[in-house]
Each structure stands twice: as C-alpha cells, then as structure tokens.
C-alpha cells in the first residue's frame, strides 16, 4: 500500500467529505437560480409558484417529522398548507436529539427528493452504480488522492449512466415519461426556501447556509463526534479493504448530481415559461405545441427509417425546434431583441406616449 501514514490516517477520510460539500454548494447555486426564475414569473403564474412552495414545504415537513421519529421524540402535530408546514414533537427532547432533528430539517430537503429519484433510477438505469477505484490507483487507494479519485470515478460512472439514460429517454414509454415528470416536479421541490406573496430578503442561499452554520457552531461537540464516527468508519473500511466509506459519500454525491440535473431541467422549463410570457396572444402556446408534435413526428419518421439513435435524435430535435420556435416568436412577435424599434426610437416613442397622457 502506498501513501504516508499521516495522509492515510488524517487526510484521506476528508476527501469524499469535501467532494460532497463541493457538489452541495453547486446545488445551492442552482436552487438560487430556480428561485430567481420563480420570482420573475410569480405575477403571471401564482398557481405554479404555490405548487412549488407546496412541494418544498412537503419535503421540509417530512424531513422534520423524520427527524422527530428517528430521535424517538414522536410527532404530535403534522400540518401542511401551501404557505407553511408545522410539525410538533410529542416529547420535547434536548441535546443531541434536538440537534439531529434540526439537522434533518435543514439538510434533509436537499437530498430526500433526489433520493426518491435515485430509487426510480435503480429500476430504469442499467449501469452507473459501480463504486470502483481506477486500476492505476489501487495501490494508493486509501490516500487522499486515492479516495478523491475513487469518489470522482464513481461519480463519473454514475453521471455517464444518468446522462446516457436522460438522452436516450423514450418519452413514449410510460415509465420513462413518468420519471421525466417526477424529475421536473421534484426539481421544483428541492427548494427549502419559500417564495411567498411578499418577498422575504432573509430567505435564500445565505439564510440556508446560516442555518447550517449555526447548527455546527452551537454544538461543536456533536460535529466532532460526527467527524470521529466518519473516521472510525473509514478505518473499518481500510482494515477490511472495502469501499464502504467512499461508497457512502458517493451515494450522497449521486444525490447531488440528480438534484443538480433536476434543477437544471426545472430551470429550463421555467425559462421557457418566462420567455413565452412575453409573446402576445395565442402565439405563446406554439412552443408548447411544438414540443410534443416535433417529438412524435420524429418518432414516426424513425419507424420508416430505423436507426439506433432514434431516441436521442428525437429529443434533440424536440429541444432545438422548441428553442427555434420560441426565438422566432420572440423576434417577430415582440420587440425583445429590439428588431422592430431600436432603443433610441423606443425611448422617443415611450416619451411621446407619456407626454400624450399628460
């Protein structure tokens, strides 16, 4: 076995942990972007925003209730509405139990929706769930570099399988279509921060981070115990020569990847809604009609000209045709790209209109 003892004993267990943290931060950034899109479309799409709030609140309250159940505090009250959720414990427990329930509340909503999608993926994906160390790193498997490489390799294998599945998704297969809907809906629900009727400045990425930080700061002893447990688990994996430790964190990494992808898909849908809102009248429905029509037409075409790239080409054509139609509508039906009036003329026109009104 290669690697210095200090590297193996002290630094190696930190590698997958840091990897998960990195992915979690990326997830937070995408959550912020989704929040931005939702707040921009809120005036015209209140029901959609209420729906996403409900999804977010459902996951948050479920995680809270799960926290109370795990700590054996019990659940005496469970209430969910579009605006807020409330969970009350049967017995108020202090110390480590309270800390664990709070940890579930603050961190759970980031991973629970992705976990549900991962369960579905187990049935739909054929490969990508391997946790193997690259052959050239087998000797230095338990060093910092070896651990991070194994973590990265398992994430690479999963991402490859997941993207392969997503781009070959058969939208005429009920299971695949259901998964896509779930991916979009859960993507909209991976958002513990609430989009209310009134804008709340304190609710956001920094607020979420502050909550997690206060959880760590208030009880540093518990965090140290958690770290020690992680180290002990690493040493057990090391002595038994198993990938258990890195495997556990790889699963968290997979969950982050699923969350990020579902957030990106949800963001794309929200972006489409935001853009079509600017198109006047009946024309705004056209991009939504283009989507299924182009896909079905491509699939029909491939019945007569079969190829192994049927699914991927159909999906790409669907995405591209929707984008092109939306762009053309924005260009010819609105003045978004200043094609009908340049900024100077637009300013003049609006000034003239204001003067007339006066």
């Amino acid at each position: 076995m290669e690697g210095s003892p200090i590297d193996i004993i002290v630094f190696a267990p930190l590698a997958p942990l840091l990897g998960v943290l990195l992915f979690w931060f990326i997830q937070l950034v995408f959550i912020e972007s989704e929040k931005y899109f939702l707040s921009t479309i809120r005036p015209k799409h209140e029901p959609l925003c209420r729906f996403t709030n409900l999804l977010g609140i459902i996951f948050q309250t479920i995680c809270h209730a799960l926290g109370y159940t795990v700590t054996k505090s019990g659940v005496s009250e469970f209430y969910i509405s579009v605006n807020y959720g409330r969970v009350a414990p049967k017995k108020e427990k202090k110390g480590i139990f309270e800390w664990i329930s709070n940890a579930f509340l603050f961190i759970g909503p980031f991973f629970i929706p992705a976990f549900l999608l991962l369960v579905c993926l187990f049935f739909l994906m054929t490969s990508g769930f391997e946790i193997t160390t690259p052959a050239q790193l087998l000797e230095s498997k338990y060093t910092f570099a070896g651990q991070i490489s194994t973590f990265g390799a398992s994430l690479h294998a999963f991402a490859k399988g997941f993207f392969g599945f997503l781009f070959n998704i058969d939208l005429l297969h009920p299971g695949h279509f259901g998964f896509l809907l779930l991916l979009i809906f859960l993507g909209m629900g991976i958002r513990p921060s609430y989009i209310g009727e009134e804008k709340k400045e304190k609710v956001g990425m920094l607020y979420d981070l502050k909550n997690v930080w206060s959880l760590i700061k208030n009880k540093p002893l518990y965090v140290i115990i958690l770290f020690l447990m992680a180290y002990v688990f690493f040493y057990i994996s090391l002595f038994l020569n198993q990938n258990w430790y890195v495997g556990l964190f790889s699963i968290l990494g997979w969950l982050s990847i699923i969350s990020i992808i579902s957030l990106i898909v949800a963001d794309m849908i929200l972006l489409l809604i935001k853009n079509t809102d600017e198109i006047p009248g009946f024309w705004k429905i056209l991009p939504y009609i283009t989507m299924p029509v182009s896909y079905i037409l491509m699939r029909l075409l491939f019945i007569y000209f079969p190829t192994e790239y049927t699914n991927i080409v159909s999906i790409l054509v669907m995405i591209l045709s929707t984008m092109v139609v939306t762009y053309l509508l924005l260009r010819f039906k609105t003045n978004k790209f200043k094609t009908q009036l340049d900024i100077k003329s637009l300013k003049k026109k609006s000034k003239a209109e204001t003067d007339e009104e006066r």
Partner: protein
Amino acid sequence: MKKDELLKNEKVEKQLSPHPLSFMRYQSLSIFLVIWGVLVGWLINFSGYKDFFNNEWSVILVWGLVLLLVGIIASLVTIRWSIFFFYLGVLAGGVGLLLWQGWQNNVWIFIPFYTVAVSIIGFLIVEFYRRSHKYFITNLRIITQGGISTKRRMSVNYENISNISEKQGVLGQIFDFGTIIPISKSGLGLGDDQSLAAGGIAVGGDKSKLFGFFGGGQEVKTPKSRTYYELHGVYPFKNVRKLVSQLHHEGGTITPYQQEQVTFQKEQVDIQKQMRDLLKMQTEPKTEEEDEEEKD
C-alpha cells in the same frame, strides 16, 4: 339571472361559477381512464410483455380486472359505490360493443381507443355539469342553482344563515378556489358522517355451533351539501369568503321598509323623551332662585 327575478332593491354583488378544477373528484375518474388507456395500449402493443397478450381475451381480462379493482378501491376509500358501477359500466359497454360489432380481432386497437374515448365523454359530462352551476351573491341573499336535466335552485337570506363553513383542498389552495357552505338555522347545509363497526364469531364443531354478533355505529353532524346548494369551488376564494362573511355579519342590507320602521321608531323615541322632560319639569319642586325670578 334575469332582472325580474330579483327582489325589490336587491342588487347582485357577485355572479360566480365553480372553478374548472373544482370537480376533480369526478374528473379524476376520467383522468385514470386516460392513463389506463394509454398504458394498456403501450402494454399490449409496444412493451416487452406484449407476447403475453397474444390472446384477445387475456387483453380484455387484464383491462377489465384493473378497471374493477381500481373501482372497488376508489369506492371503498370515498364510500361511493357509484365509482365502481361507473367502471363496471365502462367494462360492460366495452365488451358489449366488441362482441356486437365483432371486433375481437382488433382488440389491441379497440381497447385503448375505447378507454380514451370514454374518458373524453366523461370529461365533457363533468364540464357540462360544472357549467350548469351558477351562484349569485346579492345584498339580501345567496342564490345557488345547478343540474343538467333537473334544475335545482335554492336561496337563503343572510338573516337565516347561522354559520358559514369553508373548505379548501390542496388544489384549491394552489389555484385559489374553495367551497363555502351557508348553514341555515333550519339545518340546511348540514349532513351526517356515519361510521359503523360490526363483527361476528362462530364457535363449535359440526353439530353444535354458537354464533354471536356485535356492532356499533357513530354519527357526526358535519357541514355537507350538494354542489348546487353550496358555493362549490368558487374563485377567487379569499375575496368571495370576505364578501359573504361581511354580508352575513351585516345580516344583509336593510330594506327601505325596514329603514322607514327604524326612522319611525327613532321619532317615537324623541317624542317620548320630550314628553318625559316636560313631565319632569311639571312635577319637580321649584328652587328658591326660580321663586325670586317669578316675584321679580
């Protein structure tokens, strides 16, 4: 609502009809049929299990069994046997049409299309039923009406309303619609929720048997009404709720006759007060100052 149907000095404050999604209880029956129609079409024509459905009767059997099973589960959960009979009707209709027209060889196309077609008819019936509902909130009363063939209508004056019950489900919270049930003093708008429990036991061998039976029941009064006797799924819920509560609180606007009565009573009170003051002045003994003033 025509003008001549309004009472004297009555004014329509709001005219409402149920939200398109407020009849989801019935629409969900059709939604299930669409999903099952598409799924069964995929299952018997394109999936990996399509070899299992080589025989036309295996298709009908699986299709019918799932329909009935879902019907039974939905009926038990909602305590409405009409759901089961609806799906039984869909099954019987499908099989009947298939045998009548001799389309057994085309069952792989017929079953999915028939299921989706029935669901579309279901959607249309629900939509017609929804559109038959009209609610009028006037300054004096609430008028509700509905029904496709038999028109039902009810009006309740605000002074006769004892309580107002409100209900808003998850969809209602998302799309801002909800149901308002005006409960009248006579009990209109109240229904019963019944729960029953029963059990039996049989003990003994072939010759002697002992049989016992025990049971119990419970009844709870709860705000419940037909969709044409309540403000079902009205939109925007917050505004309608506020308006109804306000009108209920005021007890309806005072009619001109009532206004005359109030003015008349006020005048009467004023006259009586003046008379009382005069009587007081006559009966009270005069003070010394007043006596001196009189002498001067």
